């Protein structure tokens, strides 16, 4: 479905015309194999814990913290866009925040461990506005000894 030609024309036009950032070079961090990685998920699905302030378009590019021990019943999605499927998330949080899969992989030795904290931004945000908070978040990830991040969009 995310093949461009399978989307409705108006959505194709929106995605094709979306202003995208360009970067002079791509940074590249080498490291150990996956089996020696402590992995965190950072999603742009606009997730927050019930009771937290929802994301607001244009109100800054902040993020929400999702402790690994969070009860999935407390995880809400308040992304502003109405142009993606939410029924998958309704049935299974792992569709955007695959913490159960990471736990299984850690148990099987496919990764070293699952981070204590995971994070959500709200994707309909200018990437340039995300940068300060993303760099701040990198410090928190390092404090948690994370050495690999899986990024999941919606």
């Amino acid at each position, binding site marked *: 479905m995310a093949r461009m030609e399978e989307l409705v024309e108006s959505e194709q036009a929106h995605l094709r015309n979306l202003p995208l950032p*360009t970067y002079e070079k791509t940074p590249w961090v080498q490291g150990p194999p996956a089996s020696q990685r402590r992995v965190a998920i950072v999603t742009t699905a606009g997730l927050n814990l019930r009771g937290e302030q929802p994301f607001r378009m244009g109100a800054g590019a902040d993020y929400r913290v999702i402790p690994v021990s969070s009860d999935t019943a407390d995880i809400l999605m308040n992304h502003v866009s109405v142009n993606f499927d939410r029924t*998958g998330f309704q049935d299974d949080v792992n*569709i*955007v925040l695959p913490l159960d899969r990471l736990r299984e*992989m850690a148990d099987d030795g496919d990764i070293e461990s699952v981070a204590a904290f995971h994070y959500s931004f709200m994707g309909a945000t200018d990437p340039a506005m995300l940068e300060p908070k993303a760099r701040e978040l990198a410090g928190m990830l390092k404090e948690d000894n994370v050495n690999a991040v899986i990024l*999941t*969009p919606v």
Partner: protein
Amino acid sequence: MCGLAHFFEDEGIATVLIALVREHAEAIRSPRALWVPFELGRPLGAPNEPAFQRQVLGAALDLLDSKAGPVVLEDFPDDAPGPKAEETTSWVCPVSFGAPDDEDVSRAVLMSRELETLAPWYQVSLDERGRTRVGVSPLNIGDAAQFVASFLDGEPSESPVEGQKLGLALKDACADVLAYYAEAATAQPGQKSGSDVDRWFWSDTVAGQVLRDVRLLGLDSADDTVKFVAAKLILPKTQGG
């Protein structure tokens, strides 16, 4: 999303992006990306498919071992299990609202009746799923629905949520109404595509029609937040938004 990969990697943390729009991943040139041919909103492919989700996650993590970068973009080879988004399945909503027995009843009342009819199914959903997406708005679902419907009689003079602009309160209330209907209608297990549920809500329910009309009214609002929400954040593009 792709920009985050640049920032984290620049700070010394390796990243893998699961990309839903290949054209964007190509353009932004994030360090490692796995393009997946899945529906927008479903980066892991399909709900309640742990083996498949694990394949996707495994393929993404494998890219951490790649020495070919910077800029590794690989394609995940398989489609997600289950019906495709655009497919129509045999799914039908288990609830029949029936025709109103009194002609002059307002759509706000009809919407309340729909909510009452859906309530037992919403509870089934809550029991089965153990969670709900409803709750983005601080209003309870009945009040959220009535707030949305009140726009049909003229735009409210103030937001029902203290400290929240009228348009944003409208957006959150619409999101909760849609989530409530979708969860109740899909409480029974079985195959359904996202577009089945979308079509049902936007075409077969009073609530869908109310949201459509509130959106049209909102486009002419003098309140900038209402106008913006009406233009962008109520009706999906698949339904003409």
